[in-house]
């Protein structure tokens, strides 16, 4: 009897230990990457006699795919080779759970030294005093920004201080298939294309080719449309909508309704069914045009298997609408004990030529002139087009709107809902405009 009891206890213990181990291993694999190979390489260099105490910095980022994780690890490896006295520990999660995790870390005062930030959240974090201003690091050259055009950095400015370094550029773009335009006999978009030209082109494209001319224009396009009329979606302190006249809303959405009624653009249902770039209406060759971020160019050319072209949104020739958008930011936590090393890392990410060659514009287009110069000879077809496009945008761009205020995600969700109600013929465009204004102001009023 006693023997059996002992045995069962031992079994239980074994089970507990095994499951405990498995759990531990699971978390290391998914959440943390201490990087075994890198450990070895730095270990050998340490023996070569770097006297300093080894510093460990933590860096967190969001990753949508294994490719992002692998690439990030490669860059970190390069960094640790160059600076053997620093060890970089990484944590990652996908976009949604990343910010969930980050806010929990903020609540428990355990933010990593280097934080990957997004345009949607950076203002909130900066205003709560969780991020370190980086102006001094830039002035002293620790984060080297010589010769960098200021428009590349202004996205990271909150209330006059620099809280995040842009890790690569992006811009909204109309990507189109020149072959369809030729087939329909429509003149392709140019820098002084107007929205009237656009509407006519979409109609003709549909009539002549049987394809959709385009899809519905969504949230970022509406923001650009407002900017073209020297208005903004949000007011300066983020407590209400920034545009006064609902006519802008009405004009923008009525035009699309006309196109929808002519079947010249894809249906809302069709667009909602698509869950990613792969099954997007444009990627599947059902339409001749689509609005994307510029970094999608490479993939779209591959998916469609043909040469594509890029253009600014219509109406941008006056120089008010377009802007260059930072793809992501790197920030340093206010609570960081090693801001020097963290700054070194950010500088490396932006300016190191070998690292940027390895990244190969994956995280957005580089903007440090030295880096671009070194990379240019190796650009692919799509990268050349993106580089050229970003130059055009910079020529016509106005400064980017300040980072989104709190609750901006609720406002964009609202805009999606209201516009869908209109496109499904549930409410009139006037009602939609009024409803959006009223509800959005109610949401934003909480920021007062």
């Amino acid at each position, binding site marked *: 009897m006693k023997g059996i009891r002992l045995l069962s206890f031992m079994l239980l213990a074994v089970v507990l230990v095994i499951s405990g181990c498995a759990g531990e291993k699971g978390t290391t694999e998914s959440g943390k990457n201490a990087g075994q190979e890198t450990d070895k390489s730095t270990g050998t260099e340490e023996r070569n006699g770097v006297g300093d105490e080894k510093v460990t910095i933590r860096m967190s980022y969001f990753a949508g795919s294994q490719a992002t994780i692998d690439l990030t690890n490669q860059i970190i490896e390069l960094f640790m080779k160059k600076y053997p006295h620093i060890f970089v520990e990484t944590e990652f999660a996908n976009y*949604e759970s990343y*910010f*969930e995790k980050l*806010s*929990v870390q*903020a*609540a428990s005062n355990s933010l990593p030294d280097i934080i990957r930030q997004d345009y949607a959240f950076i203002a*909130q*974090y900066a205003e*709560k005093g*969780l991020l370190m201003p980086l102006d001094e690091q830039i002035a002293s050259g620790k984060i080297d920004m010589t010769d960098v055009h200021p428009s590349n950095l202004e996205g990271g400015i909150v209330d006059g201080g620099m809280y995040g370094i842009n890790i690569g550029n992006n811009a909204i773009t109309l990507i189109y298939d020149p072959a369809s335009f030729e087939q329909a006999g429509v003149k392709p978009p140019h820098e002084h294309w107007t929205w009237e030209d656009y509407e006519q082109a979409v109609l003709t494209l549909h009539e002549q080719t049987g394809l959709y001319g385009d899809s519905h224009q969504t949230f970022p396009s509406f923001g650009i449309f407002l900017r073209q009329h020297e208005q903004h979606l949000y007011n300066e302190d983020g407590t209400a909508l920034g545009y006064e006249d609902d006519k802008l809303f009405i004009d923008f959405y009525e035009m699309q309704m006309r196109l929808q009624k002519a079947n010249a653009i894809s*249906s*809302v*249902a*069709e667009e*909602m*069914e698509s869950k990613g770039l792969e099954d997007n209406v444009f990627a599947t060759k059902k339409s001749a045009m689509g609005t994307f971020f510029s970094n999608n160019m490479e993939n779209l050319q591959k998916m469609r298997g043909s040469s594509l072209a890029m253009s600014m949104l219509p109406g941008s020739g006056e120089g008010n609408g377009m802007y260059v958008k930072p793809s992501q930011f790197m920030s340093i936590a206010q609570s960081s004990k090693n801001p020097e090393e963290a700054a070194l890392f950010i500088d490396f990410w932006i300016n190191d030529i070998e690292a940027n060659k390895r990244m190969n514009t994956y995280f957005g287009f580089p903007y440090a002139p030295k880096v671009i110069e070194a990379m240019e000879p190796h650009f692919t077809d799509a990268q050349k087009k993106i580089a050229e496009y970003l130059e055009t945008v910079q020529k016509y761009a106005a400064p980017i709107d300040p980072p989104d205020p709190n*609750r901006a*995600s*609720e406002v964009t*969700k609202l805009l*999606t*809902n*209201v516009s*869908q*109600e209109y496109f*499904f013929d*549930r409410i009139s465009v006037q009602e939609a405009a009024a409803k959006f204004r009223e*509800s959005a102001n*109610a949401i934003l009023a909480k920021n007062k």
Partner: protein
Amino acid sequence: MTSNIAAVRTRWKEHLTGYVFIAPWLLGFIGFALFPLTSSLYLSFTEYDLLSAPEWIGWDNYRRMLFEDERYWNAVRATLIYVAVAVPLKLLFALIVALILNQSLRGIAILRSVYYLPSIIGGSVAVAVMWRQLFGMDGAVNSFLSMLGKTTNVSWIMNPDTAIYTIVLLGVWQFGSSMLIFLAGLKQIPSGLYEAAVIDGAGRWQQFLKITLPQLTPVILFNLIMQVIAGFKVFTEGMIITGGGPFDQTLFYALYLYEKSFSSFEMGYGSAMAWVMLLVVALITALIFKSSTYWVHYETKES
């Protein structure tokens, strides 16, 4: 005196042994149920975005929710439609299949497993993807319709009129667990009752109405309560198939709660929503229990 103390001590020792034995459960309950529950009650009276400390705002969350938030009521509406349509349909379907599978046929065990299968895989991401393939614009349903000569390019999952019913259908399709419980209930009905009925000349339909259904009412009650509670918690299907769209037609309560808590980071508001849901579900369950005295038939009570 000393014997008294000794008695208390032994009793305490006995109790302690008991507590030690249930300690794993007790610790789990305190750490993973009681503590989160009470803290969510506290948070529901605060504004809390995780980045700064919770700030006490009294009944504000509840007031905003009930009187100012249009989307909240969209969520309530979608959830009520789901519960009101999916639960009865699911129970009906489960009962019918259970009646069929209650026959003694060859290979019935395999059939039972097969019919239970959707319940195992039903809530998974893959099935949600499959549902999009079935009811999407280029989906199987539309292909089938066009074969019948009715060409349509309606997207059933994204059309505001039909979206919620495709999700209801997915819910009904996962009838397996209710079916198994019905099956167990059917097996419990004494066969003597049927034999007597046959002798008295009752037909199959009469047997069903007069014997099977009354005998099964306790099981129906159990299934009803379980399914109503599960119905109020519907989440995955809406999250993956429609994402709450088009314009909140399938924004289920749990989905909106999640959106508020984890993408707008309004933890206080989310907690308040959770507590209202808890109260409503508790109330409805209590009502169903109350009503059971009128329609549930217990063998023991009558005798």
